[in-house]
């Protein structure tokens, strides 16, 4: 299993039947394909739908139905469409159970930076700031490091997405939970040691005496 699939499978274990879930662009979208059996959730796309699904078959694309990246999607029976104010009312108003977002950096206080690299990349925050501020649960799904540089750092150098502490970080090496006391190493990936994780982490990690392996089938 490749790293991204591993991350997606592990994140999927966090979702509960009936949850309203928003998946960010990129790696987080893979989560939809790995829902555990019996766990049916509703996916929101912030451009205005609850109940998004893959396009049912090639040729069935609808020019009025797309995801937040502009790609064609489908809709499950029971889906609902609405305007952008309603969509963000769902997000900010405490109606969204889980958001899964990619990350550029997360720091020791569990704060996420994921929307710009000054001087290099200025895509804009899109819906990310509202999602992190408003979702009941924020899960960051990302590679543990980028080009050898740790993405989990003492203090974010990149502009923050929100000062809200995220709830869980899932990487190709570990599952880490930001808490009042700091970042707790909750699980390690199959075939990875605690020492491997520590070596690729730029922040202090609290390591319990027993760190289980991620419960994902290989």
């Amino acid at each position, binding site marked *: 299993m490749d790293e991204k699939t591993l991350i997606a499978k592990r994140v999927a274990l966090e979702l509960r039947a009936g949850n309203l879930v928003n998946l960010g662009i990129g790696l987080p979208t893979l989560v939809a394909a790995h829902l555990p059996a019996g766990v049916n959730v509703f996916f929101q796309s912030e451009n205005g*739908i609850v109940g998004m699904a893959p396009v049912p078959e090639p040729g069935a694309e609808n020019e*009025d139905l797309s995801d937040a990246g*502009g790609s064609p999607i489908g809709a499950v029976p029971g889906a609902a469409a609405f*305007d*952008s104010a309603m969509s963000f009312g769902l997000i*900010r108003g405490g109606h969204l159970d889980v958001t899964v977002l990619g990350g550029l950096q997360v720091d020791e206080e569990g704060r996420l930076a994921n929307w710009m690299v000054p001087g290099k990349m200025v*895509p804009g925050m899109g*819906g990310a700031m509202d999602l992190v*501020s408003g979702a009941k649960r924020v899960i960051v799904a990302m590679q543990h490091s980028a080009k050898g540089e740790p993405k989990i750092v003492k203090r974010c150098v990149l502009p923050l997405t*929100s000062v809200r502490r995220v709830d869980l970080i899932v990487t190709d090496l570990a599952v880490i939970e930001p808490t009042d006391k700091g970042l707790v190493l909750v699980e390690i990936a199959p075939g990875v040691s605690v020492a491997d994780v520590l070596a690729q982490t730029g922040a202090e990690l609290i390591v319990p005496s027993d760190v289980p392996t991620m419960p994902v089938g290989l």
Partner: protein
Amino acid sequence: MSKVRKLEEAVAMIPDGAVLMIGGFMGVGTPPRLIDELLRQGKRDLTVIANDTARPTVGIGRLIAAKAVRKVIASHIGTNSETQRQLIAGETEVELVPQGTLAERVRAGGFGLGGVLTPTGVGTVVEEGKQRIELDGVVYLLEKALKADFALVAAKRADYLGNLEYALTARNFNPLMAMAAAMVIVEAEDIVPVGVIPPDSVVTPNVLVDCLVAKEHRHG
């Protein structure tokens, strides 16, 4: 009285330098013929308020590529390398606004409110220059309402009075913008007789719409 106008006449009302709200999300729900006509008439120095600038060859992105826009207020420009280039080169002013905040600022503009209090952006660069207000122990930013001279709206169906229905995710910012501009120009895929759209299905009531343009039929 029918509000249907010729495309050329509708767009000719828009002067250079106008502030436009344009519906759409990555081009979905952006009125294509109105964009074409803005380009054909060579409008300049526009301020565009929109969710995003799509791609350089799509929707609002085409206005950017043609350098018709002086200022953009949007939540996302990441899919349009040209908007980013013009921003970095200082050719176009870009104000980035969190998407939910943008929706609420437009809504506030149309609903007669001075602004909204939102927790989004507190403690980030978005807070710079804004008033921070604490209410019942929660910190909010005061985000001011947005209004425009014109809203360019895409609808699925309109009747001749201007009652509007939208389709799926092509709705997005359109009904909000139809409330927040002095003049509302709608491009509808179908224009139907009055009474065909039942009152419960009308999302934008006709009193908000000034002018209707039919969408060209697509072939193939």
